[in-house]
């Protein structure tokens, strides 16, 4: 398990997953057991599969939260209830400043001046998402994530009918783009990425009404449907990397349990960032329990999908307390 922390960060930045070199004795034992009794293992797997309940618990919770947060933004303005004023880039929650980390970064670097409110709002949001899982911002709040998730279903249907194929990109692109947009903000003095961000565009459209900018969002969705599955969130969006970096220190995560896993790989099929689930491949888990890395959006699709309960949400340290 040593070095795994750093490895997971490199994985987020775009490095290909590596096979572990060291296994704990417990993990070795389980790997061995799974090899030795193949027929029994297959029979057990089939049994679990047949008895697995189809559930969308976490997806439904997540969609509810995402929709509620965005509705709260909208209603705060429309109905003048003033609970969450502003848009996703910056807002006030009952008066307290909240500022999106990536937008804050762009503004700070472009303007090169930080006023107190900007600092307070950024620090608050940093602590919030450090506590709640970093990239959980993506799957639990970002409106583009939900829209892209729905269009992903269309993409998968078209793939099944062999009408389109998914073209993978090198995941390092996101890291390169993050650096480029950061440099561009410093050099040009414009918040270049904000012009492209579908998160900002959609959030403002929901609150202040539709705009031509939605055409750009539509273009991204078409690209994802016909050419590359979830391309924006997977390979491009620097917001994801910014929050991913915050998630490095977050206690909220999904934890993999080798004991319960039958290595069917269903989780990797539904995952937005399947490279974080490399560990579920047969023979790859270095330990019996392995926390999933920071690039995970904590969306819970794998938790819902796993027929044998090998993937579960966990808050680090809280299990001991409970």
């Amino acid at each position, binding site marked *: 398990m040593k070095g795994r922390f750093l490895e997971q960060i490199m994985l987020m930045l775009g490095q290909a997953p590596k096979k572990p070199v060291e296994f704990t004795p417990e993990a070795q034992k389980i790997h061995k057991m799974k090899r030795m009794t193949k027929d029994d293992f297959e029979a057990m797997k089939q049994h679990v599969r047949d008895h697995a309940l189809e559930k969308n618990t976490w997806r439904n919770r997540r969609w509810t939260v995402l929709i509620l947060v965005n509705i709260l933004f909208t209603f*705060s*303005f429309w109905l003048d209830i003033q609970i969450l*004023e*502003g*848009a996703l*880039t*910056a*807002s*006030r929650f009952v008066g307290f*400043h909240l*500022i*999106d980390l990536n*937008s*804050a970064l762009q*503004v700070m670097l*472009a*303007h090169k*001046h930080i*006023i107190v*409110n*900007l600092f307070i*709002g950024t620090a608050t949001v940093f602590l919030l998402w450090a506590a709640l899982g970093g990239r959980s911002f993506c799957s639990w709040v970002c409106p583009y994530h939900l829209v892209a998730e729905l269009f992903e279903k269309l993409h998968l249907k078209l793939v099944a009918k062999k009408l389109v194929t998914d*073209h*993978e*990109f*090198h995941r*390092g*692109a996101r890291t*390169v*783009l993050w650096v*480029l*947009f950061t440099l*561009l903000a410093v050099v*040009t*003095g*414009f*918040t*270049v*990425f*904000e*012009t*492209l961000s579908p998160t*900002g*565009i959609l959030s*403002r459209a929901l*609150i*202040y009404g539709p*705009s*031509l*900018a939605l*055409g*750009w969002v539509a273009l991204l969705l078409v690209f994802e449907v016909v050419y590359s599955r979830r*391309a924006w969130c997977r*390979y*491009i969006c620097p917001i994801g990397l910014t929050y991913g970096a915050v998630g490095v220190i977050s206690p909220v995560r999904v934890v993999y349990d080798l004991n319960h896993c039958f290595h069917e790989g269903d989780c990797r099929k539904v995952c937005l960032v399947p490279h974080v689930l490399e560990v579920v491949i047969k023979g790859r888990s270095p330990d019996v329990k392995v926390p999933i890395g920071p690039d995970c959006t904590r969306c819970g699709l794998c938790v819902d999908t796993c027929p044998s309960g090998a993937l579960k949400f966990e808050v680090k340290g809280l299990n001991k307390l409970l």
Partner: protein
Amino acid sequence: MSQETESGPAVPAESEAAPAPRARKGGAAPRSNARALEARRRFIRTAVTSTAVVGAGLAGYLPVAAQADNPRLRPPGALDESDFLSSCIKCGQCVQVCPVQAIVLGDITDGFGLGVPYIDSREQACDFSCDAVQCILACPTGSLVYRKPDFLKIRPGAELAHKPVLKAKANDPEPTLNLIERAGLARLSRPDACLATQGKGFKGQARGPEFKGQMRYMAVDRWAPIPVADHPYERDLCDLCVTECPIQDAIRLEVTEAADGSKRGVPVVMEQCVGCGVCEMICPVEPTAIVVESRVVWEGEA
């Protein structure tokens, strides 16, 4: 033996694989070669897409350059244009607090100005009916400020002679607006079309019955702006831009009386004009005879 090796995945493939790069499975191409090919393809499409994304982002500069000569009118307290674009976080909190909804957000056609607030005075001007310049209070990043940080200089002529006195607050203990710079300057752009210069009066709704714009009328309600259409006027010599101007000493009507007793007037913009745009909104002539020009500085009375 040699035949078997040929069908196997190792030796002769290189020459065969090159003309038929699609043969990935079952073909003669060895796996390693097909992988390398896919990796190269992946690299190319990644590079192309990434370049396209950065290019699309940078294209946001084009509308900014195109608008350089005729920039958008920004809300009061806005930093200079390039500083404003860089510091604005595009959240629209200024939009939310404006009692007359004068502030709107730029669209993608504004490039880097996407999501950045501006005011279209002819449609809805800022009449300071909030009294305290709420948009400045709402701004989380200091794009709209009462006082600029020291490292940002004030352009010559942008500074007001003294803090503007809000007519609505004239009797309050503190009658001024906390503004140091003007957003722009009003200009009588079509003097020949101006009703006053023609010696004409005005009667009726300033902008017709369909006009949606609102204004605060102290005589009606200090805290509730009403539609301009609900407040008809009757003037012997049109002076709406002067009487409706919310700022003291910002505009006056110079009246000359002819020998036959007929009067003609010329609206004259004065140094205290903050560029709020109310004169442009209220002007009953179509198209307007007076406009507010964003970012224009004071260079003496025209």
